[in-house]
């Protein structure tokens, strides 16, 4: 779409000012030259205030996620790719195939356009890789000091294939609990980059879109009861949520939990428990025991499930406690994290 602006947007040296959210020509130019240029797709290029697309029969899902992470750029990703992965994963955890994303940007006056362009380019790349286009969006600018650089909210829609019935209330005693890989990478990567901590091999965020892995798991033909991505609050919070929703208990085995050496070292140093640390490319899968081995094999065959592991079982428990057999030989509870371990992690 071509409009005539007196000069091109100075992405290299310019910064966001209040006119970029004012609804006038400056805003239109920002949208054209920065957002649409990077996120290009036919639905977005219709330049309506909404995107319209045909729907098929079946069940649709919708999920939304706001992103306020600091720093905006971190090892293994940035707020742009995170905003795509976060919402794609929320949609995918229903078993759905994600179709489209919407993105809302809140920009702080003075935010460098170069950084914005970098974030949007990363978002575009993540969206292309995932095959889930950003089809509509919104931009607001607030005065300096009223936001911290940039916040992004994304909303996604998707379609659940026939016969898939995944929900947090379906875990049954006897079911097995699986995870698709190393726990705690995202939280530790953010923390290490904020505090300039170095633990030999740098830990990078695991931020990734998981719908391909979910499709592969469903494609293996095994029944899945629950899927959830253990983001803030880590595996501990997710298992406690699922235990309460399903009215069951859980028992996990510490020795079976996949945790990277660097993550363990960082947690040890900072007094954290990897079970409470956030992930952005991990999922917890719960399914019936007879299919667990096949499910594990299907996960391990996918690049995002290479380190998948069976970590425990669902048990009967009226208190809905999550317990863990420690590698040390004892048993303890695994509780929700109280308070905030690390603000603004995603």
């Amino acid at each position, binding site marked *: 779409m071509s409009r005539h602006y007196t000069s091109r947007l100075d992405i290299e040296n310019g910064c966001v000012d209040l006119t970029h959210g004012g609804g006038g020509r400056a805003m239109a130019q920002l949208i054209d030259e920065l957002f649409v240029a990077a996120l290009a797709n036919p639905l977005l290029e219709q330049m309506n205030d909404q995107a319209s697309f045909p729907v098929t029969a079946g069940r649709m899902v919708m999920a939304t996620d706001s992103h306020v992470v600091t720093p905006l750029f971190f090892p293994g990703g940035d707020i742009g790719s995170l905003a795509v992965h976060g919402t794609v994963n929320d949609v995918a955890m229903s078993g759905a195939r994600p179709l489209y994303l919407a993105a809302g940007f809140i920009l702080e006056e003075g935010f460098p356009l170069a950084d914005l362009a970098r974030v949007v380019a990363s978002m575009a790349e993540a969206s292309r890789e995932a095959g889930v286009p950003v089809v509509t969006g919104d931009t607001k600018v607030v005065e300096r000091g009223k936001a911290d650089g940039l916040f992004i909210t994304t909303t996604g829609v998707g379609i659940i294939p026939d016969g898939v019935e995944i929900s947090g209330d379906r875990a049954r005693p006897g079911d097995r609990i699986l995870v698709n890989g190393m726990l705690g990478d995202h939280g530790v990567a953010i923390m290490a980059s904020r505090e300039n901590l170095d633990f030999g091999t740098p830990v990078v965020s695991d931020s990734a879109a998981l719908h391909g892995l979910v499709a592969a798991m469903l494609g293996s033909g095994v029944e899945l009861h629950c899927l959830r991505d253990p983001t803030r609050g880590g595996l501990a919070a997710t298992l406690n949520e699922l235990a309460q929703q399903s009215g069951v208990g859980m028992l996990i085995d510490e020795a079976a939990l996949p945790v990277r050496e660097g993550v363990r070292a960082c947690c040890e140093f900072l007094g954290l*428990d990897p079970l409470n640390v956030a992930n952005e490319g991990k999922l917890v899968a719960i399914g019936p025991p007879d299919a667990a081995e096949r499910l594990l094999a299907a996960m391990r065959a996918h690049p995002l499930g290479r380190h998948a592991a069976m970590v425990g079982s669902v048990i009967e428990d009226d208190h809905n406690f999550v317990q863990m057999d*420690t590698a040390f030989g*004892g048993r303890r509870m695994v509780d929700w994290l*109280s308070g905030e371990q690390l603000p603004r992690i995603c």
Partner: protein
Amino acid sequence: MKYIDEFRDGELARGLATAIRREADTGRDYAFMEFCGGHTHAIFRYGLPALLPENVRMVHGPGCPVCVLPIGRIDMAIELAHRPEIILCSYGDMLRVPGSERTSLIRAKAEGADVRMVYSCLDVLKIAQQNPEREVVFFAIGFETTTPPTAAAIKRAEKLELGNFSVFCNHVLTPAAIGNILESPQVRELGTVPLDGFVGPAHVSTVIGSQPYEYFAEEYHKPVVIAGFEPLDVLQAIRMLLAQVNRGEARVENEFARAVTRDGNAKAKALVAEVFELRRVFEWRGLGEVPYSALQVKTKYASFDAERRFRIEPRRGRENPACECPAILRGLKQPRDCKLFAKACTPENPLGSCMVSSEGACAAHYTYGRHRAA
């Protein structure tokens, strides 16, 4: 992880658990107090109670610096934080500790007070350098482990001629607290709290050494085994305590020989002695007023003493009358003896200090041990 996994080995733990079961005389009960919150945390986090026989009971001691700070001192910190010229810097644990009338530092922060969480008191010096027009106060808490760094920060501030840095000093002394517990009528005369020995502090002892505990072993005839914070350290210490009790001995033994010597860290002790002096008396939560149990900044360094600099008056805080923290800190009660535990008082909404710090007995019970009571 090197130097970590060796001390958390499940195989060795099972061997030690068997040895403990063999050592424990089934005809009697044993009660040992682990003084430090670090030990309490390790005991619950690694699920040690499941490895101990029924007749060996651990009593949780008052060695959690967050837990023993009386409400009045929290109120004083909140008062400092509310002064517009002050930036109050604190370790994260202190922010959620309730003061009187449901106040806390985190609440003061939400109301506009400039409260900052730091990992090290050296960060506070940096904040003071970056904000020359503000007064930067460090809310110093802790036993002998954290005292030398505070002393070092004051010395460094003096060298840097930092005129806007000061310390609200709440450093307390371990031997004074152990002595107070042993002197209490419940332990000494009535025997309502049977105590057969102590798992002695780990990090504190790296500074003060093992020598200060010899008095307790001798005078009160209680064995003390200084132990590291790793779970195998704790099991080994319990085994050593059982052996001493069974032989009728009361000695100081050092399980944590890889870090603790008899005399401790001379340099750290000298630094503390240069900057701090004993307070005549200090209030402890749970223990009440304990003579010569805490430190204050020496007159020579008075300009770095926030209490003098801002002329804040001592305060008497108001405890929640139903909160059993005082009795729990003395080993008189267990967390689940408290009516508030896991009901009105949870880590999300702590009413007492033992529920705030992860090293507090109530928080450790709640987070790791609730399933055993259920």
